[in-house]
């Protein structure tokens, strides 16, 4: 299969990249690793006039801490997350999630930020970023814009990123107290999209939950932030009853469709069970003092 013909530019500077986007607007598509865009081009679901390959832009391949955040550049690949000793220390839930992304060969090319911008409701990183309260950093000729991930996903493959903007990185707040997370995914085989998956993150203040983040994968038109479940947890000491109630609320937030991977009812129940298990795991990890 061949993509429809397009013009290709691989700008050497961010200024050149945003100038191209300003000029071409909706007729251009930004490509990082290409693991989502190239399949769309081949199937001709996407037919841009111009592909702007940002793969050769400098200084976007790092994972570093600054100013209370972990900053991940737009060219950081899934495999870079998977092998990052820093992330293992700072946000180990991301390592757990990275193993579930596609397969090892796709992980060698695809990027975290690219996956977020692709906004597939079955994408794993969207839920992880919702649970962690991340912010996307975008650049255009007008300058930098920081976009909270909550609200970024508008619908399947649709975000609030503007046509003249390129996402240059993502910022994740460093947990303040003892914290823990978990990513649980049900998939039929390696490389398949999730039947359902959940990301769970908690931060503790003494015996009480100070912050809770829950993101749901493949059970709606976007990755879903289970806000009611998060609210039910915050300010309370975790008990089995509280966790069960939060899991029930998270399942209520899911809006899955029945398909070959399972009925809608089944997927909702997977969400409930996974959130319950994930919270127990995350709280256990927070107790152990795992970051």
């Amino acid at each position, binding site marked *: *299969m*061949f*993509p*429809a*013909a*397009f*013009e*290709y530019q*691989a700008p050497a500077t961010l200024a050149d990249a945003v100038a191209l986007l300003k000029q071409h607007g909706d007729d251009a598509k930004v490509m990082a690793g*290409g*693991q989502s865009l*190239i*399949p769309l*081009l*081949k199937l001709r679901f996407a037919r841009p006039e111009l*592909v702007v*390959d940002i*793969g050769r832009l400098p200084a976007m391949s790092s994972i570093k801490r600054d100013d209370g955040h972990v900053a991940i550049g737009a060219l950081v690949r899934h*495999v870079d997350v998977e092998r990052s000793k820093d992330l293992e220390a700072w946000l180990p839930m991301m390592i757990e999630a990275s193993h579930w992304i*596609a*397969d*090892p*060969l*796709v992980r*060698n*090319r695809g990027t975290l930020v690219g996956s977020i911008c692709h906004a597939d409701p079955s994408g794993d990183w969207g839920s992880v970023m919702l649970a962690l309260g991340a912010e996307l950093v975008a650049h255009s000729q007008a300058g930098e814009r920081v976009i909270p991930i909550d609200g970024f996903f508008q619908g399947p493959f649709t975000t609030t990123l503007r046509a003249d903007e390129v996402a240059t990185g993502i910022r994740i707040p460093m947990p303040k107290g003892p914290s823990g997370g978990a990513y649980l995914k049900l998939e039929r085989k*390696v*490389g398949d999209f999730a039947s359902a998956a959940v990301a769970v993150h908690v931060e503790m203040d003494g015996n009480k939950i100070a912050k809770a983040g829950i993101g749901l994968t493949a059970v709606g038109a976007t990755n879903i932030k289970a806000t009611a479940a998060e609210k039910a947890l915050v300010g309370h000491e975790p008990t089995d009853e509280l966790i069960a109630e939060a899991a029930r609320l998270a399942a209520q937030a899911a809006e899955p469709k029945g398909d070959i991977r399972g009925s809608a009812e089944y997927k909702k129940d997977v969400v409930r069970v996974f959130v319950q298990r994930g919270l127990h795991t995350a709280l256990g990890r927070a107790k152990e003092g795992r970051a």
Partner: protein
Amino acid sequence: MKVSMKVNGAERGGEIEARVLLVDFLRSNLRLTGTHIGCDTTSCGACTVLIDGEPVKSCTVLAAQADGRSITTVEGLMEGGALSAIQNGFHQEHGLQCGFCTPGMMLVGTALLARNPDPTEEQIRWAISGNICRCTGYMNIVKAIQHAAKARADAQKESPATSAAVAGGE
């Protein structure tokens, strides 16, 4: 547009349309047909090649993205006219039936042993999890990679100086 890349150690180039996929550039322009096209949808791994030593699915890479990079295809695995440790492992352990997935499996195995010379069975199974074989049930493929790992380790023990040649392709 013009592209040029190092393919199996030799500088190769061509004048192509931007939409040409790396797998088609290798097969049609360079006539390196050892890289196969299976599913053509990023699922099967028959088109696996190494870019700068890392296995990728060349049906999901534009040739333009590989400009200036170093590519290894199955045609580049031989070392000084002899089978590499991985190739020999597939030969000894009968790691194939129809052979369609074999180039991809061998390239993934080569990259795995370059990073991790002594992988566990589980690590081997995870490494080949993006490559589909419809004949063998994977058992002999796993054995082939284990065979290669052992051969490399034995060669290293006997003669550390020549181990680089046995390791190859790195």
